């Protein structure tokens, strides 16, 4: 796909984040979508493409919002679905399938209003070959590969804890972050054990919220009131729905495909990156992401983070909203990472990186199941 021909012109989160008891999941989608439309001065009748990853489906969202789409995408590959939607939407706009595409997300992850449970079916591969052995969702599944990583590269629990400490520093600068008080390595290592070696503060929080993006051609983007954020490159991939069947427990194949694909498409090198978001459902994700995206050689990311390279003032600002560990995490976090990349490219982030021109936003879906990467720029083509 030619890069730099599509831009984000509308971007917004739900009015509130955290515990939201006056909106259902569907209502959170709509709140975010209406905020994004207001952001760029559009009405539902101006939208001709819609994507979402939810139980709500693009059909329901189109109906609910009053949109008549010529393009729909219900790709649902977990928390990175929104990165994948951006990739698909950019291609669709390029191909002339739609002119103005809305990507919505709403998730009542904490309050569970209008959010029915999705149990693992006992006839599925997961239901037959993983669920009988006692995993209870992501905290006891997503974390399983990490012990192999720690043994392979000599990474310590203290170093893993540093990921949470550094991200809390970013969150402390963000009034919208759920957790803003600074924490120490000891705080993390003394927090409640969830699934050794993972403790509570190494796990994402659980909240309600949503977000939406509106994309159009770079040419049309000039006519909008917002500062266009151009899409330089994108990537997507999938590996396995079963964490036990990852090829390599120290690396995600889906990351290694999606990330480099986006970099190639963008025509940039790692030196060009001013700002980075790596979906952090748990503290090991930024470690895997930094390595699998090619920022660091294998085994070096934990020490890199512990040495404050990704902290405020560091050379590679990472998860500047505070991340899923401290900002918010409704279950599928990718939309909130994208929102922070857009804020950084617009120059309006609470912890703004001065002069940032290129932002890489990398998502994971399921438990290392899928991946999507989007590279943004605020420089006109």
């Amino acid at each position, binding site marked *: 796909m030619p890069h730099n021909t599509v831009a984000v012109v509308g971007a917004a989160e739900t009015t509130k984040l955290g515990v939201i008891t006056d909106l259902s999941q569907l209502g959170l989608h709509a709140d975010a979508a209406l905020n994004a439309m207001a952001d760029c001065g559009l009405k539902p009748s101006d939208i001709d493409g819609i994507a979402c990853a939810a139980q709500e489906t693009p059909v329901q969202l189109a109906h609910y919002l009053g949109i008549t789409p010529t393009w729909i995408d219900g790709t649902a590959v977990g928390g990175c679905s929104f990165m994948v939607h951006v990739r698909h939407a950019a291609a669709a706009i390029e191909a002339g399938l739609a002119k103005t595409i809305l990507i919505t997300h709403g998730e009542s992850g904490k309050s569970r209003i209008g959010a029915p449970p999705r149990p693992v079916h006992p006839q599925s591969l997961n*239901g037959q070959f*993983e669920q009988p052995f*006692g995993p209870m969702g992501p905290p006891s599944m997503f*974390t*399983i590969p990490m012990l192999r990583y720690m043994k392979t590269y000599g990474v310590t629990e203290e170093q893993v804890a540093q990921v949470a400490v550094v991200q809390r520093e970013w969150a402390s600068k963000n009034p919208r972050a759920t957790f803003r008080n600074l924490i120490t390595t000891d705080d993390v290592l003394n927090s409640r054990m969830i699934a050794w*070696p993972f403790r509570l503060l190494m796990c994402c929080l659980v909240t309600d919220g949503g977000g939406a993006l509106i994309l159009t051609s770079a040419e049309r983007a000039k006519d909008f009131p917002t500062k266009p954020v151009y899409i330089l490159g994108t990537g997507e991939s999938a590996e396995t729905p*079963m964490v036990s069947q990852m090829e390599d427990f120290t690396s995600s194949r889906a990351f290694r495909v999606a990330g480099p694909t986006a970099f190639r498409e963008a025509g940039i090198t790692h030196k060009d990156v001013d700002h980075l978001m790596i979906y952090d459902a748990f503290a090991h994700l930024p470690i895997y992401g930094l390595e699998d995206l090619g920022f660091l050689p294998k085994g070096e990311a934990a020490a890199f983070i512990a040495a404050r390279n990704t902290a405020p003032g560091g050379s590679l600002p990472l998860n500047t909203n505070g991340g899923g560990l401290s900002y918010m995490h409704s279950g599928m976090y990718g939309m909130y990472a994208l929102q922070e990349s857009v804020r950084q490219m617009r120059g309006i982030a609470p912890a703004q990186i001065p002069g940032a021109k290129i932002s890489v936003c990398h998502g994971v879906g399921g438990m290392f199941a899928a991946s999507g990467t989007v590279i943004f720029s605020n420089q006109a083509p």
Partner: protein
Amino acid sequence: MATPGRALPQPTPETQHFWDGTKANQLLLQCCDECSKTYFPPRPFCPACGSRKVSVTKASGKATLYSYVIHHRPAPGFTPPYAIAVVELDEGPRMMTNIVECEQTPEALVLDMAVEVVFEPQTDTITLPLFRPVLAKG
């Protein structure tokens, strides 16, 4: 029943042989007749080359402890803390399991230690393959 309450598999036509195997105290893998790849979980074709010419083979039941977490939260059929483990079979494939006849502690659960399959009946039709440490001879 040894561990009432835990989630149990429901076999499908493509996996029935595996669960028939565990019921007969056999750990069955599949091997491609064309490219010799041994694979798991079960499917009637080879994930490496796509061939439908595959055979069921009996695994040795020998494995090493590849990775795990020790879960400290409640779960139906389990008494926390308990390890959710992945073992690497001598034949190559990895599978999720539990480690039994072993303390559920980081000190007792040493990565790469030798383990062997044990079969734990759950119902009249379902037997789960679990693993226990292979005690050093001496």
